[in-house]
């Protein structure tokens, strides 16, 4: 009897650890960096980490929602670049308060096209987003003429100042916007009906449809959110730095995919969360900054990011493998048999 009790506790501990894995990882990496990495706990360093996190993290919000729906959006990085370039080009004519919403709306429009092609034309999202990715690549270079678009007007300075001034120490306006977005979407996903529909659609599309959910609309909605968030991340980043390079969102895909997976969202859909993804982005960013602070090069950074992703994927796949082996069997019976085997 006591034996059984311990076993249950162990399982509960394991499942608890699995659920809050990303927070544990975050705490461990933060502690390691804080203790060993030189100049890690400085205001400047922490703010830099938060700023980069705000770029990739905002993009990751939308990606996570698309992935919860069981789809894939590879065009996010390019949407971020495109919207950033668009916002920079429009700002001289329209000013800050008009150009930003317009550029974000453009991102939403691209998301809508993605969503319509996936949900209504029933083309695989992997293919659709490779297509839009190629199209956007061309568009970015066409509208920008192949150069980095930068601004140096009075108004641009004002906008940049507004976005980068800390509201409270460590938290510039852009980071605050990011945090609000994360908390907002997390609440939406967990507590509201539309949010729950994302999970249900991702879990099993046919069942969701039979239960009366308009799955097409849910999918389109997910892609629109993804486009909007990618655009918002890119635009705000460009506005703060007053320049949109044509490779702004190039690394985002790698970042965002890694973070979403490490954060516990699964590719088949129906599981995951925005908050966890955001924490994962922050964790990865700390890890990368730590690598730089230790004086190691870019190659180590790439290697580590791959290794972390590989370990997490392998761990999850192995857990699934073990789980599938038990399906159709009776675990209690097997445990009892094993116990008997140990005894005699």
């Amino acid at each position, binding site marked *: 009897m006591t034996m059984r009790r311990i076993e249950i506790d162990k399982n509960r501990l394991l499942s608890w650890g699995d659920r809050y894995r990303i927070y544990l990882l975050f705490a461990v990496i933060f502690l390691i960096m804080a203790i060993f990495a030189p100049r890690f706990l400085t205001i400047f360093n922490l703010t830099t980490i938060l700023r980069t996190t705000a770029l990739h993290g905002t993009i990751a919000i939308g990606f996570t929602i698309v992935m919860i729906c069981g789809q894939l959006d590879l065009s996010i990085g390019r949407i971020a670049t495109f919207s950033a370039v668009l916002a920079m080009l429009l700002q001289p004519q329209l000013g800050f308060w008009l150009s930003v919403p317009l550029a974000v709306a453009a991102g939403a429009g691209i998301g809508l096209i993605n969503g319509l092609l996936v949900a209504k034309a029933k083309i695989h999202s992997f*293919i659709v987003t490779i297509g839009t990715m190629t199209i956007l690549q061309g568009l970015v270079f066409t509208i920008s003429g192949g150069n980095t678009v930068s601004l140096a007007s009075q108004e641009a300075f004002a906008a940049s100042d507004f976005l980068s001034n800390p509201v409270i120490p460590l938290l510039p306006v852009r980071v605050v916007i990011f945090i609000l977005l994360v908390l907002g979407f997390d609440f939406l996903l967990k507590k509201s009906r539309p949010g729950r529909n994302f999970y249900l659609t991702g879990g099993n599309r046919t069942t969701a449809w039979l239960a009366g959910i308009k799955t097409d609309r849910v999918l389109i909605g997910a892609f629109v959110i993804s486009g909007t968030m990618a655009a918002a991340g890119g635009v705000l980043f460009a506005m703060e730095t007053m320049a949109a390079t044509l490779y702004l969102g190039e690394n985002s895909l790698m970042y965002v995919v890694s973070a979403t997976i490490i954060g516990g969202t699964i590719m088949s859909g129906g599981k995951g969360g925005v908050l966890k993804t955001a924490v994962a982005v922050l964790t990865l960013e700390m890890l990368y900054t730590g690598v730089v602070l230790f004086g190691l090069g870019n190659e180590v950074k790439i290697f580590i990011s791959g290794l972390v992703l590989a370990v997490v994927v392998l761990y999850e796949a192995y857990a699934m493998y073990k789980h599938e082996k038990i399906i159709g069997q009776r675990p209690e019976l097997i445990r009892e048999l094993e116990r008997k085997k140990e005894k005699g």
Partner: protein
Amino acid sequence: MNQNSTVDSRAVQTNIFTSFMGIVGIYAIAALFILLGAVLQMTGVINNFLTSRNFINIIDSVALLGIVASGMAFVTYSGHYADLSAPTTMAFSGIVAVEMLRFGFFPALLGAFAVGIIIGSINGFVIGKFKANPIIWTLAMSYVTMGVIRFIWVNRQIYPGIITDDVRAIMLFDNIYRFRLFGVISMPLILMIILVIIGQFLLTKTPFGIKLKITGSAKRTAKFTGINVSLVIGTAFLLSALAATVAGLAVTSLSRVGAWYIGEGYDFRAVTAIVIGGMTLAGGRGSIVGVMGGTLVIGIMNNIMTLLGIGTFSQDIIRGMIFIMVVGINAKTLRSMGRDDA
């Protein structure tokens, strides 16, 4: 008609036309594009389209892509989307080959293929045995490989001329890309055709091909039929890595430099070629010959756009649109014929 016979409402009436389209498929589109080019030339909009020189150029420009795609097609066929580690496999095998040139030409080839086999086996084992998600796993694998390459060679590029003084080895290595049969047929084209023939043979005439088809169309069924699904999927990934190795050797030989960035962009381009060539991401449908057709269509399309004087960036836009359109039409046709789709 016999009244008692049950009628499956989903059964499709195939006639000569549909079965013809099923076989020819992508080549019809290729012919359409050639026709478009011919019309454009007749009306005097473009010149030099219908010349043998131009067709050789078209094929040469996409032969490398064809090599990568003909291997990756096995992965798509098995229902595992794509092998995103192909570009780094190309880079790694290329750079190892250049480094190994110091021992001679054949050890270099051996080294390159060893790299391909190792990467392919790891991919195949993890995805086949543990059912890891293929896209995410191969992405992770490509970062790890990229990190290893850049760590070992410290972000440097290496040249065959610096590695060794063996002129014969360097010449042989250069000829991996530059050799021309009868002075016309280039080596990448020969390699592509050989790989396509081997691939098509494997896919249609061997037990492995049949197992792969069943695995791709219905994995659970395949498992219950007694097929070693893990092994079949693993082999698909191994074949993909081997084809990537061949392409990596050719690219490295072309640029005469081994570097980490070689092969960039070949992952998504190969997927494009495969999917345009009529393979569906759901798996179990399509053929390697079709994939070669898809590659040719991409080549002809690029060629016409370049001759029309369309800029590189506008070409991207058009290419993306045509890609989505072709795949959309393909999926719609399959659905209207009552077959499931990707």
